[in-house]
């Protein structure tokens, strides 16, 4: 599996994401700077977490206009896989590569704690190693993770099986509509989620619930 991690000014989960990808694939991903105008030939692009452009204007708004995002959009247009984690999810919604928007947490507080998620869809490359309905624990660390879309869009996402992760009942940390923690694109090749699977890939740091996501990707892309 060849992968790339996009690096914006203010990204801070880029190296952990690269470590997770290297751990499962044995290959160090290409680190691609936001101002670059070409993307190396890769199977997977990850837009990592952090505070790109200091969250100015809106989280992910500036990053969505950066030069490299044109290439990421083209990669997705050709069916290439794109994963957005936390700020990466915000960047993908701001880029209109995923539906909806991520708003200020309903409690107005930055949330930094493990959250329990239910895996809703397992037919895609990102989640093929999980069981449908399985509970996993990923750390959440965000102030703007409150997923919003209009009712019609939410109905469509649910009807089309595009809600990939939900916060487990009672564990919605940010007021997200219908407990949505992660969604995917119509073609199933772009996925975004707020919590951080890349932080839980080493047993040293607790149950490595995130490992299966990266292992699934390697499996799907080899």
């Amino acid at each position: 599996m060849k992968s790339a991690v996009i690096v914006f000014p203010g990204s801070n989960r880029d190296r952990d994401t690269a470590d997770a990808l290297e751990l499962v694939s044995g290959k160090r991903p290409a680190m691609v700077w936001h101002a670059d105008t070409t993307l190396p030939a890769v199977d997977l692009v990850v837009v990592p977490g952090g505070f790109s452009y200091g969250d100015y204007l809106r989280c992910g708004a500036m990053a969505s206009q950066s030069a490299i995002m044109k290439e990421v959009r083209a990669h997705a247009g050709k069916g290439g896989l794109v994963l957005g984690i936390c700020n990466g999810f915000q960047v993908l919604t701001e880029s209109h590569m995923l539906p909806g928007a991520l708003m200020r947490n309903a409690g107005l507080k930055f949330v930094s704690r493990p959250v329990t998620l239910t895996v809703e869809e397992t037919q895609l490359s990102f989640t093929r190693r999980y069981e449908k309905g399985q509970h996993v624990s990923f750390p959440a660390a965000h102030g703007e993770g409150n997923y919003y879309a209009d009712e019609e869009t939410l109905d469509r996402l649910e009807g089309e099986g595009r809600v990939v992760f939900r916060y487990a009942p009672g564990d919605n940390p940010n007021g997200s509509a219908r407990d949505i923690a992660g969604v995917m694109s119509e073609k199933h090749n772009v996925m975004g989620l707020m919590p951080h699977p890349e932080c839980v890939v080493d047993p040293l740091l607790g149950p490595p619930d995130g490992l299966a996501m990266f292992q699934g990707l390697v499996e799907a892309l080899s």
Partner: protein
Amino acid sequence: MKARVFITLKNGVLDPQGKAIGHALNGLGFGSVGEVRQGKVIDLELAGSDTERAKADLKAMCEKLLANTVIEKYEIELKQ
């Protein structure tokens, strides 16, 4: 030319910050305060004097970057 862009959340989109401001105002004794919605004001300076062109440009700026039209609406005010 100078322009002012007002960006606010669409009706029906929950505004937790507005709600917190409302609570705070009530707490300060301003009991008459009902619903509060907050937003952003962006002031811009534009070159040229073609107002129609400026309006079209500002609309494009809002659609492309200044507002997220999934959740926000915008109003443009142009001053000579």
